[in-house]
Structures are given as C-alpha cells and as structure tokens.
C-alpha cells in the first residue's frame, strides 16, 4: 500500500476533501437504501393500500368480493354449469311443441348473450378451456374462473337474463312445460353470475360516520387514553421525583420497575384477569373490602367497572416506564440550580414550578407523545382482559377494526376504520410535534 501512495501523496491530500464528500453521499445513500426500501414496502405501502381497500366492498369469505375489482366480470365456471343445460332443456321443450314460439325467442336471446360473452378472443379461449375441463369433471383454476366484460354487455346481460327468468316463470305457471321447474331454476342461476365491481367509494366512511358503534369505540379509546396517560404521568412524575436521589439498591428498584414493562401485555392482561376475577380474584376482593366496588363481580361485568379495570391494569404496566423516562430527564438537571434557588429563598414548590417543570418539558412531552400513541392503539390488553365487553363498553377502535376484519371478514370496512385510526394518530402526533418544535429530531442528534 505504502509504496503505491508514495509518489502521488501531495496531490491526493489536496483532492481528498472534495472527493470524500462525494463518496460519502453515495455510500450514505447505499447504506440507508435497504432500510428505506423495507420501511417503504412494509410500512408505508400497506397504509396506502389500506386506504385503497377501504374504498371497496371487500369480504374475504365471499368469493365474488374477496378481491378488489374495478371492472364487471363474469363467473364463467358457474355460467357454463348452467347455460348449456338451460339451452338443452329449452330445446327439448321446443321439440315437444310446448310454448315453442315464446321459447324460441328466449333461446335466440340467450344465444346472443352467449356471443356477447365470447366476444373477446381471450374470453373465447377461457370459455373453451373451462368447457372442456367441466366435461372431464376437472377443477377449474381460480385465475381462469372470471373474465372481464364491458359494462354495457354486463348490464344488458343482467337485464335480459332477469326478463327471461320472469318470462319462463309465467310460462311455467301456465303449466305447459314438462321440465318447467328445472328451466326456471337454471335461468335464476344465470342472474347471479355477473360480478359487479365492488368499488364503493367513500361509502364505508359515510356509514361509519353515522354508526354508533364506531363513535362509541372512538369515545372508549379516548377515555382510556386520556385517563390512563394522565394517571401515569402524575404517578410517574411523583415516583421519579421521589427516587431521584442517592440511595442503596438503586439497581434493584430499577429492575423491579422494568418488570411490568418487559412482560408481554397479553400475559399481563391475563394476570389481571385472574386478579379481577369475580369469584376468586384477590384484587377484586380487596377492592370490595375497601368499598371501591359493591360486589366483586362488578369489576368485569359492569361498563364502568370494566373500563376502570382496564385503565388500572394499564397504569400498573406503564407507570414505571413513564417514571424511568422522567427520571432520566430529571437527572440531567444540574443540582446547582436548586442550590442557588434555595439560597434565594425559593421553597420546594416554587423550585418545582420554576426549575423542574420548564427543564423537564421536552422529556415530558416526548414521554407523553409515546404513551399517548401507545394507549390510543391499545389492543392486546383489552382483547385479553375484557374482549371489548361487557356489551362493547371497552371496545376500542383497534378492537373494532380487528372484529370487522377478522371476525366478520369485512376487510373493506375494517380498512376504513384502520384509516380512521391512522388519521387520529397522525393528528395526535401532529399536535405533540408542534408543541415540541424541532426538539424531537434534535434530541436524537445528541447535538
């Protein structure tokens, strides 16, 4: 290495700063790229997609609505299981001379419609393949089942098929058909094979804005967030102020404080469910003895009791975390400030208001921001502890979105709710970031 550098040394030194800077940015972008791509693909893109899904009537357990489609489609599989048999049955009636005049018109309409479906060459191809497969009793691959058709063709198809169905019904009621019921059945089946686009625009949002359950869950979430974060803040600050001094066994205190934070929320919720139990729960018993509740069972079976229980469990789990964050903030405040203040005759309260609070402001706001967002998206605690009950009185907005999506498989409406959650979270962080100013990003820089 050294031998190579020797002759060119002086030139290189001169050039270095410029070259290094350019090099730096290329390497910089290269190093950041993988993380940014992942964030874009796994976090940002899904949020955009959630919004897109929320504009559709997307229902995973309904075959015709399990995907988003903007176009009209025809369920070829179903069509070909009905159409040939219908035409066949009509033919045999015509041969026998039963209402042959009306039936011949109907048959020609049907055949015209059939031509309409096969108009596009690719449709014709799918049509033939499926027909062949059906003849051999083979399964139809899912991607072949549906073909796109023009809107006017689809609409014409639907209206004519409905008319035909009605006509056939009347003919059948007049009683001159041999296989009348079969023909009517087959023609009814044809009315269900057009898949309409499931784009609904802002319909889900409109429904939700007038839906009591959604407002109630939003209200529950806000109550939960506000009360629990406020309680955590007050208790956390008190604890931080109390333990901000030198004493034996600091490490032990710190560790015991961290335990509630480290336990999985689901496990903590289950623990509390045991402690709150209406018959065997020790905490329920204590609350009853103290007179906080009239009967032990009231904790988890009444609206207020359940909300209180959930908040209490959350306060237990996160106050220590809050205290830790605030303690770290307190420790950056120099002791000399307090000494100077007490020499000037300021009492404890005055010191707290004029020194501690202003200097703690940014730590306080950051801790509040993270806790508020965490509390607002609460899911596991409530899912395990109350399941949203009794009678949805502790159902939060995340719980509601989960129920819509995974219990009712209504992904369109669930996505709409999750977009609402997202917007709420964005508003909350916006407010906090405004209060914090640019402190947040600067904090990370450690100057």
């Amino acid at each position, binding site marked *: 290495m050294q031998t190579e*550098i020797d002759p060119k040394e002086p030139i290189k030194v001169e050039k270095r700063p410029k070259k290094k800077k350019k090099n*730096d*940015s290329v*390497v*910089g972008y290269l*190093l*950041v790229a993988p*993380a940014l791509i*992942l*964030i874009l693909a*796994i*976090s940002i893109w*899904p*949020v955009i997609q*959630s919004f897109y899904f929320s504009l559709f009537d997307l229902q*995973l357990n309904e075959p015709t609505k399990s995907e988003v489609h903007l176009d009209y489609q025809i369920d070829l599989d179903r069509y070909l299981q009905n159409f040939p048999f219908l035409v066949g049955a009509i033919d045999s009636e015509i041969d026998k001379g039963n209402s042959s005049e009306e039936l011949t018109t109907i048959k020609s309409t049907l055949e015209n419609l059939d031509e309409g479906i096969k108009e596009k060459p690719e449709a014709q191809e799918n049509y033939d393949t499926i027909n062949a497969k059906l003849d051999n009793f083979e399964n139809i691959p899912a991607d072949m089942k549906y073909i796109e058709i023009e809107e006017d063709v689809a609409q014409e198809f639907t209206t004519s098929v409905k008319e035909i169905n009605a006509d056939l019904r009347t003919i059948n009621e007049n009683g001159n058909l041999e296989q009348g019921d079969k023909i009517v059945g087959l023609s009814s089946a044809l009315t269900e094979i057009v898949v309409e686009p499931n784009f609904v625009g802002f319909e889900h949002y409109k429904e939700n804005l007038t839906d009591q359950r959604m407002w109630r869950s939003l209200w529950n979430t806000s109550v939960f967030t506000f009360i629990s974060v406020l309680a955590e803040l007050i208790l956390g600050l008190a*604890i931080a102020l109390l*333990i901000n*001094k030198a*004493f034996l066994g600091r490490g032990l*205190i710190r*560790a*015991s404080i961290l*335990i509630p934070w*480290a*336990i*999985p929320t*689901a496990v*903590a919720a289950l*623990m*509390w469910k*045991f402690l709150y139990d209406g*018959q*065997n729960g*020790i*905490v329920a018993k204590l609350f009853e003895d103290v007179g906080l509740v009239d009967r032990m069972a009231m904790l988890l079976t009444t609206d207020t009791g359940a909300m209180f229980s959930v908040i209490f469990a959350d306060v237990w789990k996160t106050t*220590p*975390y809050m205290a*830790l964050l605030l303690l*770290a*903030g307190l420790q*950056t405040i120099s*002791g000399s400030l307090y000494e100077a203040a007490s020499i000037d005759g300021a009492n404890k309260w005055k010191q707290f208001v004029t020194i501690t609070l202003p200097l703690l402001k940014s*730590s306080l706001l*950051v*801790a509040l921001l993270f806790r508020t967002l965490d509390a607002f*998206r609460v*899911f*596991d605690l409530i*899912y395990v502890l109350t399941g949203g009950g009794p009678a949805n009185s502790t159902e939060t907005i995340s719980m509601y979105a*989960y129920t819509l999506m995974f219990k009712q498989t209504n*992904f369109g409406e*669930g996505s709409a*709710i*999750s*977009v609402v959650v*997202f917007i709420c979270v964005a508003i909350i*962080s916006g407010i906090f970031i405004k209060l914090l100013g640019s402190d947040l990003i600067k904090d*990370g820089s450690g*100057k």
Partner: protein
Amino acid sequence: MNKKAGPMFYVFLVVFVFLVMFPFLWMLASSIKPLSELFGDRAFNPFTSNPTLQNYVSVFVDYPFMRYLWNSTVVATITTVYTVLVASFAAYAIARLNFKGKPIILGVVLSVSMFPQVATISPIYIFLKNLGLTNSYLGLIIPYTTITLPLSIWLLVTFFRKIPFDLEEAARIDGASLWQTYWKVIMPLAVPGIFTTAILVFIAAWNEFLFALTINTADKFKTVPVGIALFQGQYTIPWGEISAATVVVTVPLVIMVLIFQRRIVSGLTSGSVKE
C-alpha cells in the same frame, strides 16, 4: 439533588416494589396451589399447605407450550438479527456521513414508528395469505419489521452519534477505507449500543400480539403471548396452568432485566432526553 435517603424512604421503596411486583408474586403463589385451592374461600390465601408442581407439568404436557416458546424464540431472534443489521448500516450513514436529506429520512423513520399496527394489517394479511405465508415464521418476521426497524434505527443513530468523531477522522487520514473504519473503529465502540438495541428489539418482537394473533392461527406456529392468551377455553379458564405459564415466561425476563437493566434504561431513555 444528592439528598440522603431516610428510613421512611426505604419503607416507601419496599411498599412501592411490593405493589409493582404484587400481581406477579400472586401468580407465583397461585401456580403451586392444587386445583381445589384456586377456587372458593381458600383462593384468597396467599400460601398453600400442599404445594404442587402439577400446574407446571400440565403446561408442558397438556399444552404445546414448548412449541410456543420455540416459535417465539425463533421469530424474535431472526427479527432481531436482521433488523439490527439493516438498521446499523442506515444509522451509521445517518449519524456519521454527510449527505442530503438526512432530516427527512429521520423524520420518515420517526413517523413510521408511530404508525398504528392496525393501519397496516389488512394489506399485510392479504399479501401474506396470497403468498401462502400465513402460519409460518416468515409470516411474522416480515410484518415485525414495521415495528422493529424504525425503533432500531432511531436508537442506533443516537448511539452512533455519541462516538467521538476524531477517531474516525484519524482512521481515515491513516488511509483506512470507509468499510475498514466501520468494522474496525466504529463497530467495536458501538457494540454496547447495538447490544442495547438488540435487547429492546428482541423484547418488542417477543411481546408482539396483533400480528401474531391474526397471521399465525395454527397451534404449530403460535407465539407465547398468543398461546397463553388462548389457554382460556370457551367456558372454563384454567387459572392454575395460566399462573404456571406466566411464571415460566416471566422468570427469564426478570433475570434478563436484572442483568441488563442499565442497558435497557439507557436504550429506553435515549432520544427522549437532552444531554
């Protein structure tokens, strides 16, 4: 504030620690009670005269609890290793190199860390389902990136910034390449920070619930939090087993927290405190 602590203070501390630990201690006491003492009047008695390990045996024999533990370990470990690796590159660049757009990148990272999981779950679920990745380890590792990557970038940037710049300058002037500087100078100094980040990421991945609940529904791929939460049957709740399982998952956490508390606290508070 170097006030000396008085005896009353220690009384307060003992009470405080007892209150914080109470639910856990109660679970510990209940986990060794025989079934008959979990219900009725004796349920309120903290100590049992007939301690039994039956609940612990049952957790491992009657439930696939070992499997849950293994699943959680695999998912959390892989998530931690891969996120911290990817994040360390990005954080190094953001903290130490000069290029345009750094505040924007940091801003994006911070906002993404605030995303509610529920806002991403429907596309992620549909995407994983179409790829056949539901009920697999990868099916959890992929979505966990949403939570862990921003967290680790954020923490690591703070740690990388604390390393003195002079060292790097010196190494570069001595002719070390960027790669050499990274591996030989920065990395050894960043190990504590990386380790701290890894602990926090591991805990976050271990504790995650919503994705685990919705994506891996087969018993074979359930993680510990979901597994325990679904112990409760339709009509009865096996409190004895639940207590035992809670103790089994909490004890390693307690030990880990005792050993690493200093690091965890430094990780939790970095970025929230001005220095």
